[in-house]
């Protein structure tokens, strides 16, 4: 039975990983931290909800339309929020995304109310038995999609020309410009992809945690996941997320109820103290 708990933890962990992937993406390409990653997913989720609940469109169409919206949302946010503050310290953008997070939540509340809504899953509602393991199609779907997404992002950034240029831009704007790479276009591209990731995340997360204006709070777990696994690494984001999910699930088994709530965060502090770069983190040289 423990296996079931672990698998469930892996699936929950993948939810955190999805957030972490988006965060890592923005960071790798722009060195900024996007506090609004979760709320972008939340808004995409509500837009999807509007498409199929109010307009009664079929799910596959809803999926495509929503992803188009998510990409647009990413671009809009980069244009409105990041571009004006591009020259300032990174802290400024972090606070701006904090403000954006609050705005997205309250605006969504005004449009759709703060109620909770069920969200249809992309995967069939069936129990699966794989050998000794009993799980369900939904969990397998989340895990598989997360792994595929991670692989795509990893390969994109490491091996493609566009991905490499994005990394170059984040290391040094000047050098990139000298090489003929447009910083603005790179940033816009990064945010567009991040928007896409948040849109996909919405379809995987909302069925499990239910759609509401509070859904974006998972981004905090996403931060923890990214740090545990190694900030700035896509495989790290996923490893961190899965570790966090499994840890949260297994803790109630061995620890008394009073402590189990703080285990994940305590472990996070521990990781930061002992090995700040995380499990897979990259060592970056600091600029003087």
């Amino acid at each position, binding site marked *: 039975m423990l296996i079931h708990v672990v698998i469930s933890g892996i699936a929950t962990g993948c939810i955190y990983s999805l957030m972490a992937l988006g965060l890592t993406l923005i960071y790798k390409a722009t060195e900024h931290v996007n506090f609004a990653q979760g709320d972008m997913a939340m808004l995409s989720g509500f837009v999807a909800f509007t498409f199929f609940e109010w307009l009664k469109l079929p799910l596959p169409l809803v999926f495509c339309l929503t992803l188009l919206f998510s990409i647009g949302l990413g671009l809009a946010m980069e244009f409105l929020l990041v571009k004006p503050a591009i020259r300032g310290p990174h802290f400024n953008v972090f606070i701006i995304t904090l403000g954006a997070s609050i705005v997205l939540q309250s605006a969504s509340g005004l449009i759709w*109310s703060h109620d909770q809504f069920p969200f249809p899953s992309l995967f069939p509602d069936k129990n699966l038995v794989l050998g000794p393991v*009993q799980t369900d199609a939904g969990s397998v779907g989340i895990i598989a999609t997360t792994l595929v997404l991670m692989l795509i992002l990893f390969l994109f950034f490491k091996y493609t020309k566009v991905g490499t240029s994005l990394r170059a831009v984040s290391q040094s704007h000047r050098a990139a410009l000298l090489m003929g790479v447009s910083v603005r276009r790179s940033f816009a591209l990064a945010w567009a992809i991040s928007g896409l990731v948040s849109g996909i995340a919405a379809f995987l997360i909302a069925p499990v945690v239910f759609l509401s204006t509070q859904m974006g709070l998972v981004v905090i777990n996403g931060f923890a996941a990214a740090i545990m696994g190694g900030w700035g690494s896509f495989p790290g984001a996923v490893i961190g997320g899965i570790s966090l999910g499994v840890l949260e699930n297994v803790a109630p088994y061995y620890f008394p109820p009073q402590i189990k709530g703080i285990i994940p965060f305590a472990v996070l502090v521990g990781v930061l103290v002992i090995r700040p770069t995380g499990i897979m983190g990259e060592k970056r040289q600091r600029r003087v």
Partner: protein
Amino acid sequence: MKMTWKRAVVGVFLFLVLFWIETSAAAEVGVTSDSVVVGCSNSFSGPLAFCGTEMVKHGIEIYFRQINEQGGINGRKLIMKSYDDAYDPTRAVANTKRLVEEDKVFCILEPQGSSPVAATLDLEKQKVPLLFPFQGLPLPGRTVFTATTSYPRDAEIVIDWLVKTKGFKRIGMIYQDDQYGSAYLDTALKKLKGTGMELAAQESVKRGALDLSAQMVKLKQADLDVLWIVLVPGPGAMVLKEAKKEGWTKTKLLATGPLTDEKFIILSAGEGEGVWGFSVWPDPVHSQKPGVVEYRNLLQKYVPGHEPNRYSIFGYFFAKLFVEGLKGTGKDVTRGKLVEALEGIKNWRNDIILPVSFSKENHAAQESGFMVEVRKNVFQPISGWQSEKDGKLVESPLGE
């Protein structure tokens, strides 16, 4: 740096002037010849924003609107003032002080949340009546009146029903790790001890948890007759989904009063069949009881197309109960007379819940509930109104 300090001094000066101006514009006590002002601090943002908005905007305010359109009570219009506290007790305290001292409200009507309300209980000292807060703990106080069945009372009734009426032996509980959860846990343990029994298993869940598979796996191993779910709708629905995933067949699932809400069933997307609940309201959407129909009609009149729900009916009902007390004070309205008028209410027929009676010793509007079972995604009654009399379970007809 010195220049900035000078500017600071000017700023503080202007600021204080503003404060002084604000003070001198303060109004009369909450009752004038043509109005009665009441108010509350509630959640209009944050996790409980939906409940707060429903109970105040689509509950109290629609009822007051109807009363005002009919000329008010003894010629006085009813005005409702509310402020957002986002479930933060500090803001609840600030808002409540503002209502009492700046807006000079006549009484506090329907604030929300055990935490925020507990922090404002010193209103008692100032003799401001606190009426019908949306929370589940019994509250002491000469000028405090509580609303729906309290958590401990809910727990007592349900334990009696499970043990005596249903004959269950192995009872388990999955509960939220806060006052809501511990109220049920402690009462259940106490009551069971009285009959020499214990809980067969208990697991706690953190507020906002996303995954309860660990707790559910352990509970399944306990081979329970019934699992009592003391959670809020989100995690509650997760319990149902998880039970389906793990293949729970034998164990009955039972929801507490606050959880017995249509939202919980909707969120579980079809896994709710056969789930039991303890309902303190008749079905706000389907019930044909005259009082409920009246509520629905009013909701449709002022907020057409809006779904009836247990929060707005709460807001509506207790606004109505407040007005009942207000009527009893006659032309000369004072806080003391309101408390007396409320205490004088006996067997108030309302065609929604059991008749309401207050007394000097009893300030709880409701101490009963009826058992329901989910059939075809709707809560259907499976018992009459249950209440406790001298430690024994007593049933009254539902009167649908």
